[in-house]
């Protein structure tokens, strides 16, 4: 599996995700500078977490206009897998590759803590090593992760099974009380129409080895490797 991780000015979790991918695949992902206009041949393109362009204007808004994003859009249209985590999710939303938007957390503060996630469908390239309804403990670290969408979009996302993960309680309850940041329907991650583009806020890449105190994100990367190998 060939993987590339896009580095924007202000990206800061490229190393975390590159490590998780390396551990799962045995191969070192290519780091691609945002100013490039061509991507190396890739089975998976990753937009990592961070504060691209300082998240000035709106989170992800400026990065969405980086030269490399034209190439990412082109590849996504061809069906190449794209994963955006945290700031990467914000960039995917700003660039139109995913529906909806990500606004300030309901509590108005940056939040770094471990939350519970409920896994949605497992017939995608990303979640094949999980079981539907699995409850994962995964850290979040963001200020703008409150997923919002207009009623039509929301109905479509829900109706067509595009919700990848939801914030839940330790027993799987999905409610306002178990909503990490105010996201509509507790949505933590969404797919595009063909389920080959995924954006999510939680940092699966920081929960992949015993020293993290948590390995519940590891199956995400092993599943991806198996699907794309």
């Amino acid at each position, binding site marked *: 599996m060939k993987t590339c991780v896009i580095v924007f*000015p*202000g*990206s*800061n*979790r490229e*190393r*975390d995700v*590159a*490590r*998780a991918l*390396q551990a799962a695949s045995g191969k*070192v992902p290519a780091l691609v500078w945002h*100013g490039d206009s061509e991507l190396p041949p890739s089975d998976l393109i990753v937009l990592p*977490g*961070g*504060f691209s*362009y*300082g*998240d*000035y204007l709106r989170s992800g808004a400026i990065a969405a206009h980086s030269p490399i994003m034209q190439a990412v859009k082109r590849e996504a249209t061809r069906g190449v897998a794209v994963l955006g985590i945290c700031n990467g999710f914000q960039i995917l939303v700003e660039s139109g590759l995913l529906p909806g938007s990500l606004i300030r957390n309901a509590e108005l*503060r*940056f*939040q*770094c*803590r471990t939350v519970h996630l409920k896994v949605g469908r497992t017939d995608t390239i990303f979640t094949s090593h999980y079981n539907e309804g699995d409850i994962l403990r995964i*850290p979040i*670290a963001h*200020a703008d992760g409150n997923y919002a969408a207009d009623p039509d979009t929301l109905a479509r996302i829900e109706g067509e099974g595009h919700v990848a993960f939801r914030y839940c309680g330790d027993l799987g309850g999905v409610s306002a009380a178990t909503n990490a940041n105010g996201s509509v329907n507790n949505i933590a991650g969404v797919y595009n129409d063909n389920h080959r583009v995924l954006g999510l806020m939680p*940092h699966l*890449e*920081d929960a992949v080895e015993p*020293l*993290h*105190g948590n390995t519940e994100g590891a199956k995400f990367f092993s599943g991806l490797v198996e699907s794309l190998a």
Partner: protein
Amino acid sequence: MSEKIVDEAVALEHKLNAEEWQHLLTSLGRVPTMTEVGIFGAMWSEHCSYKSSRIHLAKLPTSAPHVIQGPGENAGVIDIGDGEAAIFKMESHNHPSFIEPYQGAATGVGGILRDVFTMGARPIANLNALRFGDPSHPRTRHLVAGVVAGIGGYGNCMGVPTVGGETEFHKGYNGNILVNAMTVGIAKQDAIFYSAAAGIGNPVVYVGSKTGRDGIHGAVMASDSFDGKTAQKKRPTVQVGDPFTEKLLLEACLELMGLDAIIAIQDMGAAGLTSSSVEMAAKGNVGIDIDLDQVPQREPGMSAYELMLSESQERMLMVLKPGSEAMAEAVFHKWELDFAVIGRITDTGHLVIRRHGKVEADIPVSSLVDEAPKYDRPFVRIEPPAPLDNSQYELPDTVEAVLLKVLACPDLTSKRWIWEQYDSLVRGDTVRGPGAADAAIVRIGDGLEASAKALAMTTDVTPRYCKADPYEGGKQAVAEAWRNIVATGATPLAVTDNLNFGNPTKPHVMGQIVGCIEGLAEACRALDFPVVSGNVSLYNETDGESIPPTPTIGGVGLIADVAQAVGLGFTAPGRDIVLVGNIAGHLGQSLYLREIFGIEDGPPPPVDLAAERKAGEFVRRAILDGSVSACHDISDGGLLVALSEMCLKGNIGISVDLPNSARFLFGEDQACYLIETADGNAMLAAAAAAGLPARRIGITHGDRLDISGLMSISLPDLHHVHEGWLPHYMNG
């Protein structure tokens, strides 16, 4: 500007007193220009010259076989094996944070990060030690919210995890809060960068952000006390931070450091271009010529005076190898940062500043540095209070009621509301983050590789101890930092000190400074824990009231195999709980006394450094033997608070047998540890063989904190009390 007549009154505006003004005239041999007096004012400020503390700082031990660079550079450097070095420092941003909490705290983090990456290190961890005023003070809530958001806003964007620290509240900080920020970085020992300029004719290069009018006089302001009216008027002296630009500056600097281009590099911190150029020239014994017209500027019409004293953030000064300018410029342009050759190294020994072709300053560098004032200020030795009559402080209520009150007090309540606003996980190397162990544990990794090694880091000081007895309090700050590192299994290596005090012209404050420094020195020597970097913040005083003496210690240790490190939370039911060390029941200056009886009295607990060393080395060896599964030292609040924290972190209850004694349960004796072990008898035998007092107090069990015959509370109830205060206060 230059038309204004420079006289003693102008000098006074720059906080140079009459004596210093005469000294300046003699040293320079003429009346200075306005730009020159500004430069002298900054360089001779307390902040830059350490004029009141220098002779006492010399008492601190600063060397050891593993010390590569002690105080005097941008940060301290220690050997951590395998050709690697840890580079770290702690620095205060107290005055600006009180005036404008978000930007003050944010730029404090930015400044300390620059100090570390200037030396070629990749920052891997931030910590911070915060002191706020009484929770009932009208400004406290606003200051907490702003400082925490500022620290998070900067550190999170930089991609450096904030992994530890401490936050306390006391009315002694009502008029002067303390924001002490620490950064720890990692570098290869053969790629450490220093600030001594060299090479006559070599280019002096400015990189980073443009210079604006922000933060002018910051160093002078930070060397002044407040009165009730002035603090808000000083707002324009506070700098404004841009963590995005600093992130670019970090990456650009590290990229250029990988090429063979840099001779010397210095960040522009307090007193901006002035202190960076003067320090580089002084360390290299050379002169420096700067043409200010070449400095990238944010706004038009800036004078030489303004350009030299601006504290605009995210800027660096470098001396490059001749011919490497184009290569360096390409790196900085890739990262969309300004790059400008603004001067040359000279053999004159003078700092020469030109603006619009005119010489605005021409000062011997030695006048600014070597001839800076140095004071042996008068001081009085502070006598500790008489011992308490402990019989007056028996438990006034049930053990449970007292515990819940102590555990919920602002100093001991959970600080989750604060540290959840910090990204403690970015980089993926945080093994024990906030609240998980006595010291934060961060794995050392290079590129995508992860080594087995990790650093243990902590910040500590107990100001009420320092106030009652500066010498014992100074010792205790070092001993607690050392103990917190030991309690994870790591070997303590070195410290950075951030010395926060009031007005040094007052003999009793000077007595606190001298006493604390002598106590620190004694403990650092006894524990082989040298000081490699630090910062002094004086004049933390408002309306004549000085803060409690607060010499914050940032400790760093090393553990060879991170898998051996332990946290403070209980890990499994059915394990033995062993107390190592002797509890004499010291109640003087305890939180029990303060929270239950409303008094801060008596001497602080004495620190027996030989006993510390003996207990600590025993505990560390036991952890590395694999016979310890959790460990927590006894500190603020005493034994019962420590046990509660171990239960709450591990979400595992205990069943223990303890005497019904305030002194035993809440005394703050030093050199004591609580250990969870699978084999208590073996631990007791080992302690006996080592000549250490130890006793088995019970087992981990169930989901209640249960003390036979004294109290029993469910962990959810305990959790509720411990977690409740801060969110409730902040939302109030």
